[in-house]
């Protein structure tokens, strides 16, 4: 008679092996040895202790959920919330540096009000001048375009107009889809597969 297969040894461990095969086991040294070895190993593994995380684990998990209101964030953004202590430490370091540098800058600004006011005045004047230049240039350019002629030309060539519109819409949609795919976080299903 054939020796026991690994599946049959599993069934013997579960006390579900048919009597005929149990009889073989009792009369076959090789299968008996194999079965005893497997039983000893599985019993030893089953006796390995259950390990527990350190005290306060549940609180830390829940704190991780509450951190930047993870529960209220959209699902796509939750992946950016750090879940490990090391990641939190890094994020806290960056936040600390930001606060520190902002504090130093504010203190410096308060200590040098004249300098700050002069710099702000110059910057404001530059921005206003730049805005005026851009506005004037655009207005001038637009006023030079013969809009009536353009409209007449376009309505005289409806096929070209349609082709141009189609091309423009396609380009726009392609650009949007590309941007969406680039910015979308990778999706990962945690549900077990059927």
């Amino acid at each position, binding site marked *: 008679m054939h020796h026991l297969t*690994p599946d049959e040894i599993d069934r013997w461990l579960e006390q579900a092996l048919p009597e005929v095969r149990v009889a073989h086991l009792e009369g076959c040294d090789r299968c008996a040895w194999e079965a005893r070895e497997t039983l000893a190993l599985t019993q*030893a593994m089953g006796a390995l*202790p259950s390990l527990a995380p350190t005290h306060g684990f*549940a609180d830390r*998990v829940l704190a*991780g*959920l509450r951190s930047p209101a993870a*529960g209220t964030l959209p699902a796509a953004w939750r992946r950016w919330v750090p879940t*490990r202590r090391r990641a939190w430490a890094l994020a806290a370091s960056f936040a600390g540096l930001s606060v520190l540098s902002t504090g130093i800058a504010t203190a410096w600004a308060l200590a040098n009000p004249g300098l700050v006011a002069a710099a702000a005045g110059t910057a404001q004047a530059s921005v206003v001048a730049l805005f005026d230049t851009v506005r004037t240039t655009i207005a001038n350019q637009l006023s030079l375009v013969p809009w009536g002629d353009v409209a007449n030309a376009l309505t005289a060539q409806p096929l070209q107009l349609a082709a141009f519109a189609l091309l423009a819409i396609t380009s726009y949609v392609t650009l949007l889809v590309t941007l969406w795919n680039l910015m979308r976080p990778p999706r990962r299903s945690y*549900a077990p597969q059927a």
Partner: protein
Amino acid sequence: MSPPPETGPTEAERLEDREVVVFAAGGEEWAFRELVRRYERPVFSLLVRMVRDRELAEDLAQETFVKVFNAIDSYNPAYKFSSWIFKIANNTAIDVLRRKEPDFLALEGAPHAATAAEAEATALQLSARSESPLDELEARELGSMIEAAISRLRPEYRSCILLRHVEGRPYEEIAEILDLPLGTVKTYIHRARNELRVLLRATKE
């Protein structure tokens, strides 16, 4: 959603996983705590034995629970919750192992332990299941040998054998957790058992 008025901590223990998940999805804190209470030990045990670093395993366990709870709305009650959480825990461990396979076991303490006291503090606590000190010592030694042997298995074999013989999961559930065909799971477990026997025999000799 609020639990029924009579649903206290003891009532929570009587609920099935999928019922607790419904409350958790409704934002009930007791439901989150109940799920952590039910699964912190099995998930942490699996992760410690997968990555062999207690501190890292705790980080990964925390990450696993946060991932599960953040995606609790997408839980499909057609599947067992245990399969879902073990799947995430295993994937989290495999991701870490792919990045860096640690080359030694943390049974005697975390790899970064600088002093003997620190190593002792981070060592795996093997509970005494025997009665005499000698039996306890033998159990500890056997347990240590098995843990060391498991750590030398391929990660796929490690997941399979831990889920089957340490966590006591049925073959079908292991196949679901690991996304593997049932036959492959059985083959991996049989091979893992053979490898473990060889490794243990070599250790004893």
